[in-house]
C-alpha cells in the first residue's frame, strides 16, 4: 500500500493503490518479471500461484484457491472479459501466451464495485496493445511441454497487430513413443491462440479487437481384467472470446472505457466405471458489455459510473451417477467406486447479470485519507427450462428466478506518513449458481445466488527504500451455497439445497525487495482457515482449507547475460477424511470405505525448492535465451494424494514430481 504510482522499476509489484481503479488489496506484477520467476517454467500467469492468499493446489489440478474460496468462486478476467479458467489442464500452463500479457493482478477479496458475479477473488489480466512496438517483433519458445510463438508489432503509425499461440507436444510425443502411458496417466493436450488488431483513433483514444481461444483434452483409462472395474475419464474444455475494446483518456481525470464481447465455452467431463458412464456436458454462448466513465469532480473527488453485463445461455446434458463429479463436502476416498444408480437430464439455462455500478473516491486531509464508496446492483436473473424431472411424455415446464442484490462496497485508506499506510475494506458480493447444479434431476432448479461478505484490514510499511512490507487480515462469510441434500427422502428436484455456509479468515504478508543492483525477491505468506457447515450445523474444515502457505523467491541478474532465480515453497496439507474401516458390497464385489470425522486428516506438508538458470545470447537483431529450470531440487517425495488398497486395509500415497530438469528455449526478435 505504498507508493503505488511508482513506475519505471523493472519489478512492479503494486500492493493496492489509492487511485480509483486499484483494489483495496491486490498484488500486481508485470509480465517481464513474472516470466523469470522460478517454478513457473517461464509462464507469466503462473506467477499467481506465488502470490499471498493463494493456496497451493494439488499437482495436476491447476485449481485456483484464493482465501479458501472454491475455485469456481474466483473470477478470471482478461481485459475485463471473463474466461472459464486461468490454467490449462494439469496447471502446467496458463491459457494466454506470455507475450500478450502486460500485467497480472490478483485481488483476493474486498474489491470495488466495478467487479462482481463472484464470491471469491479476482485475477485480472491486462494485455499488451503492441501500439508502442517498434516494427515487427516476435518470439518462439519451446520446452518439454509445448512450443509456441507470437508475432506482433505496429503497422504504420496507427495500426497494431498481434498473433500468438502455443500447442502442447507432451501428448503427441507419448502417443508416438510410449502410447501405453496415456492409458494410465492423464496427459494434457492443450492449445491456445490469441489475435489482436488495434487502431489508435486519436491521441489517447484506442480501439482494438481481440480473439482468444483455448482448448484442452485430457483422457486416461485404467484397464482392469474385470470390465466392471475398468475406469476411464475424459475432460475437455474449449473456449473462445471475441471482444471489441474502446478507451479514451482525456488526461484531465476523465477516462471512458467500453467493451463488448461474445464468446462460447464447450466443456465435457465424462467418466466411466465399469458400465456406468457419467457425463456432464455444457455448451455456453455468452454476450456481454462493460462500459465505464471516470470523472474528476474538483480536487478531492473522483467518480466512476459503469455498467457490467453478461448473458449466458447454457445447454446442459447430465447423465449417470448423481454423486459424480464430486463437490465440496462430499466424503470419499481417492479411487472409490462411484455409486451405480443413474439418472439423466437435458436442460437449458439462461443467466442474466446486468449490473449498473457507481463508485466515488473522496480524498481528504491533503489526500492522505481516501474514502472509496461504491454500490453495485445486480438482478442475478436466470431461467431454467425444466423445473421438475421428466415424467414420461409429459410436457416440461420451466421457471424464472431472480435475486435482486444491492452490493455496497467501502474502502478506507489512510496514509499517515509517506512510508506507512493503513487500509480497511468491506463489501457484499454475489454469485449465480453453477448451471449444471440447476438440473431438476441432479441438482435444484430453484437454487438462489450465493452471497458473501468480505472484510479486510491492512497496513503497509516501507522501512527502507527497496523494501515493502504489507500485512493484510481478512475474513469472508458466504451463504446460500449449494450442497447435497442429506435427507433420506429429498423432495423431487431438490438433490441440492442452498444450505451450505462458508467462512474463511486469516492474514497474509507480502515483503518485497525492489530490484536493486540486479537483485530482487519477495516473501509471501498466508495463514488462513477455511471452514464450511450446513446451516445450523458444526463448522468443519473446508476441502480447500490450507492453513499455511509460504513462498520465498529471489533472483539476480549476473554478468554475461546470466540470470539466476530460486524459489522455495512450503504449504501445509489439504484436508482429507480418514478411512476407518470398510464394508463389503457383495453385489458389486466392492469394498465401501467407512469414514471418520470429516476432513480431520491432513496430507503431509509440502516443500519444494526450484531453481531457474538462464543465459541470454544477444544476436545482431534478436536474442536467444536458454533456460534450465530444476524443479524439486531436493527430490523430496511430496504426498499429493492418499490411496488405498481395494479393501481399504492399507494406505499408500501418490507422491509428486521427483527432481525434474526442464530445458527451455526462447528466441525473441
Amino acid at each position: 500500500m505504498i507508493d503505488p504510482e511508482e513506475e519505471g522499476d523493472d519489478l512492479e509489484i503494486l500492493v493496492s493503490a489509492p487511485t480509483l481503479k486499484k483494489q483495496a488489496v491486490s498484488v500486481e506484477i508485470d509480465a517481464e518479471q513474472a516470466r523469470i520467476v522460478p517454478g513457473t517454467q517461464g509462464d507469466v500467469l503462473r506467477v499467481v500461484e506465488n502470490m499471498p492468499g493463494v493456496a497451493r493446489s494439488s499437482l495436476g489440478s491447476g485449481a485456483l484457491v484464493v482465501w479458501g474460496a472454491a475455485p469456481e468462486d474466483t473470477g478470471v478476467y482478461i481485459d475485463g472479459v471473463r474466461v472459464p479458467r486461468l490454467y490449462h489442464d494439469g496447471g502446467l500452463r496458463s491459457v494466454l501466451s506470455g507475450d500478450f500479457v502486460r500485467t497480472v493482478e490478483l485481488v483476493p477479496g474486498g474489491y470495488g464495485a466495478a467487479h462482481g458475479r463472484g464470491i471469491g477473488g479476482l485475477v485480472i489480466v491486462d494485455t499488451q496493445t503492441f501500439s508502442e512496438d517498434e516494427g515487427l517483433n516476435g518470439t518462439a519458445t519451446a520446452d518439454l511441454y509445448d512450443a509456441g510463438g507470437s508475432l506482433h508489432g505496429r503497422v504504420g503509425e496507427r495500426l497494431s497487430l498481434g498473433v500468438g499461440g502455443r500447442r502442447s507436444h507432451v501428448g503427441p510425443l507419448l502417443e508416438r513413443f510410449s502410447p501405453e502411458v496415456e492409458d494410465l496417466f492423464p496427459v494434457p493436450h492443450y492449445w491456445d491462440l490469441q489475435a489482436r488488431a488495434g487502431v489508435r483513433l486519436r491521441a489517447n483514444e484506442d480501439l482494438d479487437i481481440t480473439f482468444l481461444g483455448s482448448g484442452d483434452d485430457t483422457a486416461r483409462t485404467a484397464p482392469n481384467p474385470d470390465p466392471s472395474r475398468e475406469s476411464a475419464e475424459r475432460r475437455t474444455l474449449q473456449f473462445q472470446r471475441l471482444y471489441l475494446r474502446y478507451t479514451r483518456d482525456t488526461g484531465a481525470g476523465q477516462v471512458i472505457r467500453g467493451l463488448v464481447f461474445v464468446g462460447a465455452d464447450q466443456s465435457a467431463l465424462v467418466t466411466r466405471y465399469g458400465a456406468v458412464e457419467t457425463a456432464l456436458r455444457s455448451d455456453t454462448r455468452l454476450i456481454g458489455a462493460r462500459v465505464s466513465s471516470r470523472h474528476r469532480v474538483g480536487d478531492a473527488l473522483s467518480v466512476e459510473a459503469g455498467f457490467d453485463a453478461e448473458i449466458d445461455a447454457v445447454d446442459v446434458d447430465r447423465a449417470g451417477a448423481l454423486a459424480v463429479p464430486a463437490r465440496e463436502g462430499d466424503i470419499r476416498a481417492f479411487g472409490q467406486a462411484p455409486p451405480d444408480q443413474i439418472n439423466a437430464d437435458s436442460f437449458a439455462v439462461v443467466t442474466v447479470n446486468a449490473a449498473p455500478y457507481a463508485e466515488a473516491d473522496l480524498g481528504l486531509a491533503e489526500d492522505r485519507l481516501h474514502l472509496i464508496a461504491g454500490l453495485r446492483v445486480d438482478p442475478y436473473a436466470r431461467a431454467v427450462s425444466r423445473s421438475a424431472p421428466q415424467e414420461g411424455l409429459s410436457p416440461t415446464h420451466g421457471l424464472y428466478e431472480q435475486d435482486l442484490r444491492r452490493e455496497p462496497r467501502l474502502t478506507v485508506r489512510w496514509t499517515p506518513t509517506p512510508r506507512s499506510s493503513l487500509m480497511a475494506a468491506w463489501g457484499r458480493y454475489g454469485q449465480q449458481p453453477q448451471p449444471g447444479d440447476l438440473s431438476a434431476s441432479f441438482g435444484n432448479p430453484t437454487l438462489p445466488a450465493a452471497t458473501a461478505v468480505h472484510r479486510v484490514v491492512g497496513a503497509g510499511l516501507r522501512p527502507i527504500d527497496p523494501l515493502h512490507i504489507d500485512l493484510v487480515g481478512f475474513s469472508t462469510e458466504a451463504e446460500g451455497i449449494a450442497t447435497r441434500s442429506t435427507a433420506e427422502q429429498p423432495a423431487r428436484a431438490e438433490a441440492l439445497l442452498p444450505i451450505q455456509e462458508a467462512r474463511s479468515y486469516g492474514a497474509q504478508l507480502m515483503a518485497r525487495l525492489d530490484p536493486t543492483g540486479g537483485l530482487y525477491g519477495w516473501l509471501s505468506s498466508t495463514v488462513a482457515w477455511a471452514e464450511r457447515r450446513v446451516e445450523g450445523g458444526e463448522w468443519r474444515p473446508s476441502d480447500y482449507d490450507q492453513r499455511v502457505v509460504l513462498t520465498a523467491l529471489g533472483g539476480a541478474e549476473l554478468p554475461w547475460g546470466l540470470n539466476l532465480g530460486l524459489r522455495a515453497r512450503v504449504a501445509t496439507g489439504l484436508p482429507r477424511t480418514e478411512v476407518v474401516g470398510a464394508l463389503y458390497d457383495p453385489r458389486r464385489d466392492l469394498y465401501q470405505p467407512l469414514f471418520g470425522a470429516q476432513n480431520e486428516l491432513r496430507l503431509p506438508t509440502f516443500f519444494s525448492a526450484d531453481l531457474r538458470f538462464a543465459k541470454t545470447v544477444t544476436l545482431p537483431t534478436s536474442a536467444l535465451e536458454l533456460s534450465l529450470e530444476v524443479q524439486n531440487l531436493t527430490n523430496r517425495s511430496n504426498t499429493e494424494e492418499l490411496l488405498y488398497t481395494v479393501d481399504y486395509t492399507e494406505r499408500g500415497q501418490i507422491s509428486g514430481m521427483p527432481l525434474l530438469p526442464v530445458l527451455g528455449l526462447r528466441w525473441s526478435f
Partner: protein
Amino acid sequence: MPTLHPARPAGLLLPVLLAACADPLDDNSALITEERLLAVVARPAEVAPGATQTLTGLWAGPEGLIGEAALGWGVCRRPKPLAELGPAAPDCLEAENSALESLPAGPTASLTVPEDACSLFGPNPPPPVEGEEAGRPADPDVTGGFYQPVAVFAPEAAEGEIAAGIASLRLRCDLANVSQETYIAWNAGYHDNLAPEIESLELEVDGAPIEVARDGGEATAPVPAGAAVGLRLAWPECPLEAACGDGVCSGGETGEACAEDCGAGGLGCAGAETYVVQVPGTDTLELARESVSVAWFTTAGAFDAPRGGRAADDAARMVDAEWSAPTTPGEVLVVAVLRDSRGGASALSLTLTVE
C-alpha cells in the same frame, strides 16, 4: 506407508500423473486371512415385493468355508441419502439398529421382501411424510435395477457393530415415468434375472489338465507345490438374439409371441442374458446384455488377478486366471464367485491338495 513414484521415463515426461492410478497398491483381497463374507447368493435372484427369497451367505476363514456360521441378517428399512456412496443408509450398517428388521441368524435366511420395498428403494413414490413435499424415488442402476439392502453381520455381532457386508437384492418393480405404451412393452419384454451358474471349472499345470474329483458337493484336486495353476471358469451360453424355440426367453421376447419359451414365467438362461431396459431420461427401451465377472478367493497362494470378467459386448463365456500354489504342502481352499450385472451370483469352492 507405501509410495507410488511416477515411473521413469514417465516421471520425467509427466508431472501430471495424479488421479491416474487404478488399484496401484497390491490387491490382496483374494487372500482369506480372517473370517469374512465372500458373497451372498439369492434364490430367486429377482423377486417382486411380497415374494420370498432364500439368502445364503458364503462365510469363510483362513481354514476354509464355515458352512454353519450363525450370520446375522437385517433387512434395511431406511432409504439412503443421495450423498451416500455406499449401498445403504448408514443406520442400516449397525447391528441392532432400529433401521433394521432382523431375520433369524444362520448361514441362510428366508426373506419375504417387504411390500413397500419399491417405494423405499425403487421407482415408486416414497411413503408420504406429513407436512413435506413428495419425495424423490430412487434412481435405477445401469441395468434398470432397484435393490433391497440386507445387512449381513458376523456371527454374534454386538450391538452397534458394523455389518460385514450389505447384500443388495434385486427387486422386480414397475417401470415408472414412462408412457403407457412403453410400460406395456417393458412389462411384456422384461424377464426376471436368472442367476448365473458356473458351468465348469478346469485346472491345468504346464498345459496338462488336472482332474477334479467330485464327491457330492465337495470338489478336490491335487496340485504340485509352487506350481502355476491355470484355471478356466465357464458359464452357459445365452442367445444374443431372441429366437422362438431356442429354449430361452430372451430380453424383448414375449409370452404372446413365443409361448414356447416365455410361457408360464419363461425360461431363463444362466449365462449373460439379454434384457430390456429404459434409456435413462427417455420414454424408450433398448435391449441390453449382462456383463459377467468372476472373483477368486483362496486361503493360500496367490492369483495373478483376483478378478476377471466379460463386458456386455464380449461374447466369450469363460475367464482364465492363474493361481500360484504355496510351496508348502497342505489343503488350500479356492472359491470362485460368478456374478452378473443384474445382481445375480453363484459360487463354487474347490479344495486343492498341495503336494
